[in-house]
């Protein structure tokens, strides 16, 4: 028996900021959840189950926060499920929520992911409280140096991505960073943080949450009939690989490539560059855009940077990447993956507002975590059979 088709009928997110001191962390999560429910024309009472994801509990100093948040999310009397797969967790949260629908266990599931980074300190938590924490940038900088040398990409590629994503963010009312005068000059003159990564090539630290309402084929078709186009999941996969072993390649991680292949096979995608209209890729540091374009076979190996150089990934390009502004513009860590998945859904729903990619019918989203080891990927489309 094949699995039940799954549709996204509601998307919500918070206004992401360095410090959302105006809300409690429960209030923050509810802000995203109620927006997603409003978008789906539902209330908490309509939801059968809640799936919640976030990065380490040490970030906020609340252990198993799904316990505290059960009533905040209207989950009393319902299943409340907690996912944690490092930085990819937001994506995995969406995939696990979809699994509830695809297995025909439930009809309407709320997926929520959040981080309230201002309650603690990410560098502290990443180092588990010890000194000389490398932070994510310190951990990833060597991967980027390897990519640059391998591909022969010029140094301005990273700056271009940093500018493009911040320009896209100006069109996204929810984005954290709004740098109206962003420019190549400004990026290249920003302080070097983790050589070769500069400050403006790095993601911010944000408070924020994202929520998505998923439903079955009947629910998706009902929304469509009501003039509220859903996004249909064509394929989804999560893959992981060990942290390190001799010869492991974190620049083109096999788990990333395999997850992409899983999804393409499920979706019937044989030419991702042509069949996919836009992508929301998890790019916390500018160079990851080139790395993940290659990791998902959108560009040939060593050629991803050329798409950037040729402005193909700009909002008006042939393959827009991160029209929302991406992780470079908003990074509530646990929610960052779900934001990618939700933004991709909004693109094919035609609901992305000012950063809508014209005519987007098929969208890719991915998130990754830990030492480039955990990958979550999905492809969503405006119909169940977009390829005829």
């Amino acid at each position, binding site marked *: 028996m094949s699995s039940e088709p799954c549709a996204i009928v509601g998307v919500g997110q918070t206004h992401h900021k360095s410090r959302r001191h105006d809300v409690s*962390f429960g209030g923050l999560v509810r802000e995203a959840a109620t927006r997603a429910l409003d978008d789906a024309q539902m209330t908490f009472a309509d939801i059968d189950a809640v799936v919640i994801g976030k990065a380490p*509990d*040490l970030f906020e100093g609340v252990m*198993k926060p799904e*316990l505290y948040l059960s009533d905040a999310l209207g989950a009393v009397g319902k299943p*409340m499920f*907690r996912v944690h797969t490092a930085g990819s967790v937001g994506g995995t949260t969406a995939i696990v929520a979809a699994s509830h629908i695809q297995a025909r266990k439930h009809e309407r599931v709320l997926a929520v992911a959040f981080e309230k980074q201002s309650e603690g300190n990410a560098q502290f938590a*990443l180092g*588990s409280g010890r000194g000389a924490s490398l932070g994510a940038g310190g951990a990833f900088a060597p991967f980027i140096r390897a990519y640059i040398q391998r591909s022969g990409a010029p140094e301005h590629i990273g700056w271009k991505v940093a500018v493009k994503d911040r320009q896209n963010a100006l069109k996204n009312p929810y984005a954290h960073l709004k740098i109206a005068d962003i420019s190549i000059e400004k990026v290249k003159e920003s302080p070097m943080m983790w050589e070769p990564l500069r400050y403006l090539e790095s993601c911010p630290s944000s408070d924020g949450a994202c929520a998505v309402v998923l439903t079955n084929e009947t629910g998706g078709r009902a929304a469509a009939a009501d003039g509220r186009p859903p996004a249909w999941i064509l394929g989804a996969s999560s893959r992981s690989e060990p942290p390190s072993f001799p010869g492991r390649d974190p620049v083109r991680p096999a788990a990333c490539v395999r997850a992409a292949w899983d999804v393409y096979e499920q979706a019937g995608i044989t030419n991702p560059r042509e069949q996919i209209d836009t992508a929301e890729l998890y790019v916390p540091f500018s160079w990851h855009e080139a790395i993940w374009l290659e990791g998902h076979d959108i560009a040939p190996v060593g050629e991803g940077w050329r798409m950037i150089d040729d402005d193909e990934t700009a909002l008006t390009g042939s393959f827009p990447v991160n029209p929302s502004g991406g992780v470079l513009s908003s990074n509530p860590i646990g929610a960052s993956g779900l934001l990618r998945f939700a933004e991709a859904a909004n693109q094919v729903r035609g609901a992305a507002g000012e950063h809508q990619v014209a005519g987007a019918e098929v969208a890719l989203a991915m998130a990754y975590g830990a030492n480039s080891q955990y990958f979550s990927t999905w492809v969503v489309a405006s119909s169940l059979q977009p390829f005829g």
Partner: protein
Amino acid sequence: MAPSTDIAIVGWAQTPMTRRTDLSETQLLLRVITDALEPLGLTRADVDFTCLGSCDYITGQAFSFVSNLDAIGAWPPKRDSHVEMDGAWAAYEAWLRLQEGDIDIAVVTGSGRSSTGDPSLIYPMEMDPFFLAPLGVDPVTFAALQARALIAAGITSERAMAEVAVRSRRDALDNPDAQVANDGDVDTLLAGDYVREPLRRHDLPPITDGAAAMVLATGDRARRLRERPAFITGFDHRTECHNPGYRDLTDSPSTRIAAQAAGLGTGPVEIAELQAAFTHEEALLRRALDLGDDAVVNRSGGALASNPIMATGLARMGYAANHVFAGGRRALAHSTSGPCLQQNLICILEGDA
């Protein structure tokens, strides 16, 4: 809704349950996953999906689960997930995933070493961060308040609780994997001091280091792997509001709803493995589940005999599966999380007729 695909537990294993292990969590998982697969003639390469359950605050390190990937043989990369929950919820995720129909075999684990920190200092961190955690309110305190409520309501008594403790640890004498097993005496136990009135030492679970791993398979594959697989015929979990002060502590509505959704009421169960880490919880859960007097509860010794946090619930599923493997017809497993049984999970296992 009925599951679209038959899914069964075909095997499981647990590490020795000890007060303190010298092994890392990854080492525990390396051993226990092998121990679960080998008797089935399977290797890690046969596993299509893994889901691990563990908790950073138990381990004392952010991203502690990442090194546990080293135990699953994730090369080539595996379809994989992790829950910051007991391994029983990892099993739930795998059960959903297998029903999508494209894969056959999943391994799920639960692992934790509670010996590394002081539970009375760690557990307040899972409580309401504004009103409860700052007071250092730990789950034992709330368990005591729940026990008091149950005693006041006539649902249990200090003597009945001691009887649960004696029975559980006496049953554990027959369980070579149990950590605490002895032939105690109710009156002697009742002469002991209170830890948190009305709870005495014997009403509390031991501190246990350990891990469990379980193999799940889809219908036909399951029947080829084991003569008598334990089919999951119902699986559900529910939560309640967090602050126990807002709840009726003499009831466990989330257990009742989960049991109903899992189809418990369609027939009797022969055995029930309940994650009743405190003695009084058994009486409450029995009531919520409407278990008949003929249902044997926690023949393994239960969580009072070994309590490997994050694996205790998965082990309940394992013991319930053992009953079906050995010819039993229908068994129930229960897991829980949060103060005063906030979240409850019910799994019904059945053998082929």
